[in-house]
């Protein structure tokens, strides 16, 4: 078990600065998920923990100890790669055993470990097969077993599920969560799939362009996004954002906070519009509502409207967010919050009146 800490870490490749002065603490025993758009530096961060690409400057600490000079094999970390990186010429057993052999674990001990791990991941009957004769899911398990068998204090995973089909992915997701509970070690998991991040993480570290945007529990990131980027990256469909028209301030609300009605509503924010698209997803329906100046995505549990229908869209005051010109969220406690809220309320009345006059 171990905590990981980045202190003023910078990473650059051939003069391209990918990560600059990053500070981050990953807690011991937690399931931490690094999430962010493609190319934001998630893999780069993970590889620095493993020691595969040492940082350009700054230091990486594992359990409070600077590991800069310690080679990958001796950091007590294990990594699962997106493409599994299984040794194709070795049998399943040899794959799992390789790290143990290199660490001079005695033969009997090795045999015991390999067999118990393969039991855990469900590979018991396949130990003497070549990886090429196994399915994608089974190969994924070899990679997991190979990592687990070394009893690492840190588990690194770089999009380990992205090569699996949707069903297997959901199943493996659950297995990984259970595995984390059982092992209790530090997991650092990289994904660009925010659903995966939300469902698995104790803590989400949200990154963009080499910088950490927010570091918090999934529900906190969802309910109190730090900034516009966090608000729009997490959640499907993303938060609706529109201009308030004052001080370059933006306001926003989650699709499920929107209420639709054929009659004018009593909500704080309100706007008349037309339904442009309707996506029926089973338990819920997503409407795209186009108002005079903006389109909004609305998620409803009921399926009551049709395309081209004229509706009123409303949002309660408690579900509204405001973002300043610097893109950071304006807190409810902030003095500006109430004035922006009032301004939005005033605008709503005008819009609704105008809508009725036209209608």
């Amino acid at each position, binding site marked *: 078990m171990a905590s990981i800490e980045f202190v003023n870490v910078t990473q650059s490749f051939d003069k391209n600065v990918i990560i600059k002065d990053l500070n981050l603490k990953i807690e011991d025993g937690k399931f931490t998920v690094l999430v962010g758009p493609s190319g934001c530096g998630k893999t780069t961060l993970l590889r620095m923990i493993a020691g595969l690409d040492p940082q350009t400057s700054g230091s990486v600490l594992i359990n409070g100890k600077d590991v800069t000079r310690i080679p*990958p*094999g001796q950091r007590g970390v294990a*990594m699962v790669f*997106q*493409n599994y990186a*299984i040794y194709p010429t*070795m049998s399943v057993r040899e794959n799992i055993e390789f790290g143990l052999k290199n660490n001079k674990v005695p033969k009997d001990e090795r045999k015991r470990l390999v067999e118990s791990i393969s039991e855990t991941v469900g590979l018991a009957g396949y130990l003497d097969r070549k990886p090429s004769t196994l399915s994608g899911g089974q190969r994924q398990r070899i990679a997991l077993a190979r990592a687990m068998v070394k009893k690492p204090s840190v588990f690194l995973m770089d999009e380990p599920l992205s090569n699996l089909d949707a069903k297997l992915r959901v199943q493996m997701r659950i297995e990984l969560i259970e595995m984390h509970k059982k092992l209790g070690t530090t997991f650092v998991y990289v994904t660009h799939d925010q659903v995966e991040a939300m469902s698995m993480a104790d803590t989400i570290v949200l990154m963009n362009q080499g910088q950490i945007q927010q570091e918090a529990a999934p529900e906190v990131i969802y309910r109190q996004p730090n900034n516009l980027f966090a608000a729009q990256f997490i959640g499907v469909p993303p938060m609706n954002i529109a201009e308030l028209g004052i001080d370059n301030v933006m306001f926003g609300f989650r699709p499920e906070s929107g209420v639709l009605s054929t009659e004018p509503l009593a909500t704080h924010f309100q706007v008349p519009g037309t339904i442009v698209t309707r996506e029926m997803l089973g338990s819920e329906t997503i409407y795209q509502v186009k108002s005079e100046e903006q389109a909004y995505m609305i998620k409803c549990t009921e399926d009551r409207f049709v395309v081209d229908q004229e509706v009123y869209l409303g949002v309660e005051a408690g579900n509204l967010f405001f973002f300043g010109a610097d893109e950071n969220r304006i807190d409810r406690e902030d003095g500006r919050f109430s004035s922006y809220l009032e301004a939005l309320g005033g605008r709503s009345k005008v819009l609704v009146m105008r809508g009725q006059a036209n209608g």
Partner: protein
Amino acid sequence: MSFEWKYVRAPLSFLLKAIVLMIFIFPFLWMISTSLQTFQETLTFPPTWIPSIPQWVNFSTAMNAGPFLTYARNSIIVTFSVILIQVLVMIPAAYAFAKYRFAGKEILFSFVLLAFMIPGQVTFIPVYLMLADWGLINSLLPQILPFMANAFGIFLLRQYFMQIPQEIIESARLDNASEFKIIWKIMVPMSMPALATIALFSFVSHWNDYFWPLVMTDSAAVRPLTMGIAMLRETEGISNWHIIMAGNVVLVIPILIVYLFASKQIVKAFVYSGIK
């Protein structure tokens, strides 16, 4: 007309292909036939197609015409030493060129490519003088050492290594494997097809080589089979074709056997060498 043509076409094409095949195979059959004929039979007109009594004695005559045991031994030692040394030299070099970054890598690799293009027909005089200076001319080393770096092999193996995903090597590093172990336990087993290709190519070219031993050797003790066979004409007389062909059969058989067992590999090796 087209109706009839349809029925003639397939057998005709088959026949034509068989004739072409014969043009390339028959000389070897003729070599074997001649090697079993008597001197008289080689002179008859029309020619003797099948010898009346196979003259196995031709083979012992040919083999007694010179120190053929020595020649054969030299051929075997030279060919296998060359392959072994080349492989040992090539693997670390190809790995370094494929997977490490170091100053001067491009220039050093361009030396490899340059070596690939400079033929022995150009360099044999200085190489001979140099090896003579070192006092090695009366050993087999002049036929082995100059080939220690197989430029084509390094090039091909490097390509192969580059295709192996970096993550596999990184996994091994995380598994605390030394670089030696990574090469020996992971890279080499994964590149067996390439190594086999290179080794076969080397085998064929060094077993068959005539020019290099011709210009590097001064005495029978260090000469290979190819030279011994070529000299049969001088030792056995220009018209003793039955003896010369018998010696020839001995030279060809090992290659033909290898070709029978590994024709796909050999064909691939040669096509590769041509395309890359």
